[in-house]
């Protein structure tokens, strides 16, 4: 499987080179991250960001971070295709609202807990006083 990820003259080209219809060299920057089994991944990324931009981004990040960078680009590209207006920012907005909702609920529950605890403390202290 690793050999298919690192395309050379004898193996099949990577998804990027297949899409771009060019020869996949041994030092192809896309090859490790766009296997030929996932053609849609590169197609989406190319459609939104363009191959040259992706190549520049990959060259700017460290080699051990390139896989993460490609995966995040693929995620953003897919999100933008699904939602051309908001893209992945829509998901961020939804998550942010969810966090705020949970925060409010947590605050209310904590207030209830404090009220409950204070009432319980008041009752038991009164009981303790009566007991001597």
């Amino acid at each position, binding site marked *: 499987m690793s050999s298919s990820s690192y395309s050379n003259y004898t193996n099949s080209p990577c998804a990027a080179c297949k899409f771009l219809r060019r020869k996949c060299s041994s030092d192809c920057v896309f090859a490790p991250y766009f296997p030929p089994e996932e053609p849609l991944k590169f197609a989406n990324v190319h*459609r*939104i*960001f*363009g191959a*040259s*931009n992706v190549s*520049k*981004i990959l060259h*700017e*990040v*460290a080699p051990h*971070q390139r896989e*993460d*960078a490609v*995966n*995040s*680009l693929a*995620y*953003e590209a897919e999100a*933008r295709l699904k939602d*051309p*207006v*908001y*893209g*992945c*920012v*829509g*998901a*961020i*907005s939804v*998550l*942010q*609202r*969810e*966090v*705020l909702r*949970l*925060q409010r*609920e*947590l*605050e209310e*529950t*904590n207030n*209830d*807990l*404090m009220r*409950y*605890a*204070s*009432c*319980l*403390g008041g*009752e*038991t*202290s009164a*009981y*303790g006083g009566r*007991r*001597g």
Partner: protein
Amino acid sequence: MSQIKTIHNPIGSLERFLDLLLISLIVYMTLKGGTSGACAACKYQRRRCAADCPLAPYFPAEQPKLFQNVHRLFGVRSIVKILENLDEVQRPEAMKSIIFQSYVRDRNPVHGCLGITQQLQYMIWVAEEELKAVNLQLQLYRNGQNHANSHNMMIHEIGEKQEDLTSQLDLGMGLPVNANQGNNTIPFFSPVSETQPQQQPQMSYCNDVNNNDYNPTPDSCKEILNNHNASSAWGQNQFPFNHHNYGFINQNEHCSETKNNNSVMAIQSQLVNLQMASNKQEEEVDAQNYDEIHQFLEIIDDSQSFTETKEVYASSSGESLKEPIDEIGEKELRRAATCFSLTSVN
């Protein structure tokens, strides 16, 4: 006068024409938003900015960085294509999201918006776990109060009959914590908890969170999402996940002080009072923790905020509290049982 006017008319008209031309040029430049007249997009591309330039409304000339980020990630052709496929009403919103996405990518070239998404998902998980713990504790108190009420009634009815009372206490009816100690402890949130492995697939893009080179993307969320009608109340966020942790740690010590106390209710009240006191003491610590959580959403170039946050979570709730919390229920039970088996209830 009229002769002078007649002589100078050609020159005057030329001057007037030039004046008018200059005025119109100034007006044109003003309308275009700058002395050069071109939007940031056309400036960057070094081309004439047409009157119907589609990018001009979104990229003012005085903010070149915005367009640079967008150009770097999307490219002009892609943006124009996206805009062409949208309605007029949708275009401003789309451009806002594109600008935001590009800004985030500029701040964090590796993870981009996915990093923010993962961070928010983590925060949701934290809040949900905290909510579960608080709800469980609330239920515990409710059960305890019900038991206490029924216990009080029994004591009044039975009176000074020690044998009956101790027998019922031995059954654990007066010790509300018994009912819910089947799992030994109240499940407190810990970032190193058992549930975390389930979250790992979602956190796969943040595997390097614990690495020093992780660079979270804080700032843009608060500023830009505000324009998306998202709430800007991040400064008010408080996840009091530490309240009950510290409270239950001190319960262990406090139980020893109540050894000579013959009343189950006294133990309960002291536990509650202690927790309330410790909650107040921990507010400052919590505020500091939550400030660290929110730092990655502030417009501050802080590359370690998220790692510090994770460290705070791990150190404050996971590492230092795990063992004491596990032992509290068992020790508490033992001490309470000791109280009632060896001493009489007055």
